[in-house]
């Protein structure tokens, strides 16, 4: 070590501070930080963005050429182009305010609705309680539930001939008078005791 040159206290302090706080990073730490930063730059597609711009420019030229050709031939206007091309040209033309027919979009989705076996909705008979109003209840539809159709087999009642008994007479039957009982006065709760 050479003889110590007299340093300004601040200069000496700065050197010491740097020596104490700044140190070479471990290789694995460098690798981890580089991977994280590289992924962040890559995931945002900063590099890819340039490619997209170039691709987009090329696409514009191709689109313009295709559009011109298609319009000139009236192909796009009549919607006779293959679906993807027709849709693409219609999209491009929309930007300049030209509306061309678009092919129908077919959704290749065929979702089977599962059936729920063994679900039966029982008949419910509500007893009538005087003075109580039962609100109308709507039974929600259970999605996917099917009520199996029940067919009642036809029943044939066999015709039975009544044998004639010689000498027998059927006495005249009188139906007794039926008296309808008087309905007692019904008081509706909350109506002030008036007869409805």
């Amino acid at each position, binding site marked *: 070590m050479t003889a110590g040159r007299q340093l300004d206290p*601040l200069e000496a302090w*700065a050197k*010491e501070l*740097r020596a104490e*706080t*700044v140190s070479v990073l471990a290789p694995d730490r460098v690798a981890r930080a580089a991977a994280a930063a590289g992924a*962040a730059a890559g995931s*945002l597609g900063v590099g890819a963005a340039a490619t997209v711009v170039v691709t987009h420019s090329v696409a514009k030229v191709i689109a313009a050429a295709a559009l011109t050709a298609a319009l000139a031939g009236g192909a796009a206007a009549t919607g006779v182009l293959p679906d993807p091309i027709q849709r693409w040209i219609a999209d491009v033309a929309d930007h300049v305010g030209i509306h061309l027919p678009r092919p129908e979009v077919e959704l290749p989705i065929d979702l089977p609705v599962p059936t729920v076996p063994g679900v039966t909705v029982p008949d419910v008979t509500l007893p009538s309680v005087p003075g109580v109003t039962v609100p109308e209840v709507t039974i929600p539809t259970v999605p996917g539930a099917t009520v199996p159709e029940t067919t009642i087999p036809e029943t044939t009642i066999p015709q039975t001939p009544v044998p004639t008994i010689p000498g027998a007479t059927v006495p005249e039957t009188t139906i007794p008078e039926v008296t309808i009982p008087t309905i007692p006065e019904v008081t509706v709760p909350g109506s002030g005791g008036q007869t409805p």
Partner: protein
Amino acid sequence: MAIVVESTSMRPRSPAGRPQYGDLERVARARQGDERAWAEIVRDVGPTLVGFARARGVGDPEDLMQDVLVAAAARLGSFEGNWRDFRAWVFSIAYRQVVNRYRAPEPATDLPEILVDTADSPEDQVVRSVMASEAVQALDVLTEVERDVVLLRVIAGLDTGEVAAAVGRGRGNVRVIQTRALAKLREELVRRGYTGSDHGRRAE
């Protein structure tokens, strides 16, 4: 008084570690997510970023370094300039992250007592030893902004204009802060007995 700030490059000089890219090419490749370019950037800027964070009292300086570089990577599309501009820009991100960490500390999570590790982590021990050093303790006489200005000058090696851009103040204002901070530091160092021996150690 002028603090001579040496080159902050910590790039290995061995043939194996020699930078593969020129400064501009490195940034251009980093923009595309090239990990080798980022490795060179980490080797170059990382140590001073960690040093800045450490001197600023950040508990996890290497994590902060990585966060800063990831943030820089995410915004690299908007950066324009040369290598020096790049370094200054990265430190402006570091400054903001340090300020944000102190402004919004993470909420403490209550753990069951059995899960609480009361022992110091190795990182805490290192930070504590650095914080205990005289050089770092001397910074206590400075206000926060004075400390930031001095550290960005001394550790990051930024010039006054770059520091002004990083901390979002005018160049004249930064110059005033710096002059005041250095005067306070000098007074403190003299009071502590720093005589300016070769390696900055206190004369016995």
